[in-house]
Every structure is written in C-alpha cells, then in structure tokens.
C-alpha cells in the first residue's frame, strides 16, 4: 500500500475546508495528546482527536468516515485544556458539517425507536443539530 504524505504542505482541500470552517490552524498542534487523554468518550473513538488532526495534516484518507466525528459530543474539555490553544471541538464540528453536507443526515428521524421518542426535547434537539444538516 502506498500512502502519499503531504505533511501539511501543498493544497489539501479537506484540510483547507476544515481550517476555514473551524477557524483553527491545525499545524499548531504539537501532538502532546492532552485532548485524547482528557476526552471522556475517547474509549469509543476509532481515531483519537490528536491523531485526527495528524491525519488531516497528512491528507490521509477516511477521516470523514470515522466514528469519532459522531462520538464527540462537544463537551469542550479538549478545547479548554489544549496547551496550544487549539479548539479541537471546532475541528470536529467542521468535519461533521462537511460530512453532513456531502452525505446527508446521520440520524433517521422517522426511524427513531419509540424509547427515543420519550426523551426530553433537549436531547432530541441537540442530537438533531449535531446529526442532521
């Protein structure tokens, strides 16, 4: 398998989009891993936040297909603790938005199970905001 690495140089459309949407400069990341260590949901992620940033910088494929995008709930612990001042939650939000615009909703509202229909409005509103375009 050949992987072409661009190491942050050269035009990378996804990286560019993410940087514009999130207003973050990903190259500022020095890969300390604080975000991953602090994330309460890291165990469920298939790509930890620091790795996700690295993958974007390297232009590695498949970032948009990662479960991480949807596991992140936006608690902003990473954002608050990043020693480089990177708002990691914004980066993931940008990826979600790109993905939703490309592929449509991540949550089938009409197919919600009956139990989910008994939830407080706050849960449904938040979920729809994060999972539908």
């Amino acid at each position, binding site marked *: 398998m050949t992987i072409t690495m661009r190491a942050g140089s050269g035009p990378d459309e996804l990286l560019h989009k993410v940087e*514009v*949407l*999130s*207003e973050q400069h990903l190259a500022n990341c020095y890969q300390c891993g604080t975000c991953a260590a602090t994330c*309460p*949901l890291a*165990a*469920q992620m298939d790509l930890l936040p620091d790795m996700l940033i690295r993958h974007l910088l390297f232009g590695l494929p498949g970032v948009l297909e990662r479960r991480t995008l*949807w*596991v992140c*709930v*936006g*608690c*902003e*612990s990473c*954002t*608050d603790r990043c020693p480089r001042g990177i*708002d990691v*939650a*914004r980066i993931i*939000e*940008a990826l979600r*938005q790109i993905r939703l615009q490309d592929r449509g909703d991540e*949550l089938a509202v009409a197919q*919600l199970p009956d139990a*989910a229909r008994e*939830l*407080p*409005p*706050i*849960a*449904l*509103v*938040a*979920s729809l*905001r*994060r*999972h539908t375009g």
Partner: protein
Amino acid sequence: MQIAYYPGCTIKASARQHEGAALAVLRALGVELREMEEWNCCGVVHSLTSDNLIRHMAPVRVFARLREQGNNEVATLCDMCFNTLARANQLAHEHPEQIEAMSVTSGGELNYDGNSGVLHLLQILRDRVGWAKIRARVRRPLRGLTVYPYYGCKLLRPSEIGIDDPETPAVLRDLMQALGATVVEGSLQTQCCGAYHVVDREELVAGRVAATTAQARERGSEAIVLSCPLCHFNFDTLQPQASAPLPVFYYTQLMGLAFGLEPGELGLDAHHTDLLPLLEQHNLIRPKGGPA
C-alpha cells in the same frame, strides 16, 4: 429583585420540577423571575463553525425578543440554554456582521447588538443573593446528608462563558455547604455525561453515568446534585441496574427542603429514581403515613 426569565423547552417538559422548585426558592429569597412572553428553543448546542448562521438564528431570536419585550438581561435555569445563549450573545457582540447577515435573510427580524446579560440561576444565587443570605434562610439544614455535586460541561466550558473555574468549580459545593449538607467531590464531576447520545448511543451515556456514580458512591455520597436537565435525565434513568441507584436532585429541590418549603412544591415525586427514602432517612420529609 426582578429578572426576565427564559425557561427553555425542557424546563417546561421533563424538568418542570426544577422550575417549580426554583421559583418557590426564589420567592423565599425575594427574587422574581418573569417569564418572557414569547420565546423559542435556543437550539441547545452552539454551532461551532464559522458559516452555519442558520443555527445561530434561534438564540439570536431569543435576544431580539427579549429586547422587544423591554429587557436587557435574562436568567435561565438550564445549563445548555445558558451556554447557547451566552455564546450567541458573545457572537453577536463580536461579529455584528453575522447578525446583520441573518437579519437580512429573515426579513429584518433579527436585530441584536450582543449587549444583553445572560445569567444562570446559580450565578444569581452566588453573586446577587449571596451565600450568607441563603444560609440565613435555611430552616431545616441538610445535616447528615452527603452529596456529590455534578457539574457536567455546559456550566463550565468554554472558560470564557463558564460560571466557575472549569477545573475546580466550587459553586455547587458552596451552595450545598450553605444548606448544611456534607459535600464529597471527585475528578468526574466536570466530565460530560454523554448528553444527547441518549438518543441513539445510549450505552455511551450509561458508561459515563456508571463511572461517575461509582466515584460518588466510593467517596461516600448518598446522592447526586446537579443543575442540567439533560444530565438529570441521564443520571436519573441510566444508572446501572446492579446496585440501588443514587437519588439525583436538582440543587433547587435541596434548597427548597432546607428552606422548609412544602415538599409538594418541589416535585420530589417526578423522578425516575425514588428520592423519598433518603429524605425520610434524614428526617427531611415526613414519612408517608407517619405522624403529622
């Protein structure tokens, strides 16, 4: 003291007991929350990207209506509403051009300058009423009751919005201590409960709830006290089956008990996890069928 009040949807749905208790407690403290005449959902989560203006319309509309109704400051009980409103307020203040863009696409309905104040009820209690006054109002101290304050995310983060230090928050601890309760704390107090994942990734929430309640129990807590209606729903309904669940209180309910208010006003029976045995055990309410 009179403050305009934005309830938010969930306060009117699954968290009515929180509102009932809050209004009763505030009455006892001489504070009146006046509900906005017309309001809409705040959107619950603040959109974090730069070009998603439609998602900011809801909270900005709340402010536009607040102004129309002649107010410049708004209080809320819900952590998520607080967070969303405060951040939209900040956005409006820092990026008037974005508000202008929204207003243009909405027939000029959304004029707002970002200069309103947003207050969480805990800020009102701490900064306007003060712990001393609250302590003085206590009629039935929560002596012997050990609680674990849980903050979650939206009260504290991001730090420019949060109402307390995001790493070592104190507001719930100080409040509980003012009521006479014993407070135990732990690292998971400020970690997210999994929030809206309850819709379609329930196991994820259950895991967070299990870890947090285990820590609380380990530290000797008999109950969780919290503020956010979503955290409340998750803790109240998703604790592990293995052991008896920890009762989950809104701080307003414990304030009401300590103030000696009528338990009927505090919605103590509106919970999934039964609160009454613990309260009876500490003589905070009269047992059912017991002596009058």
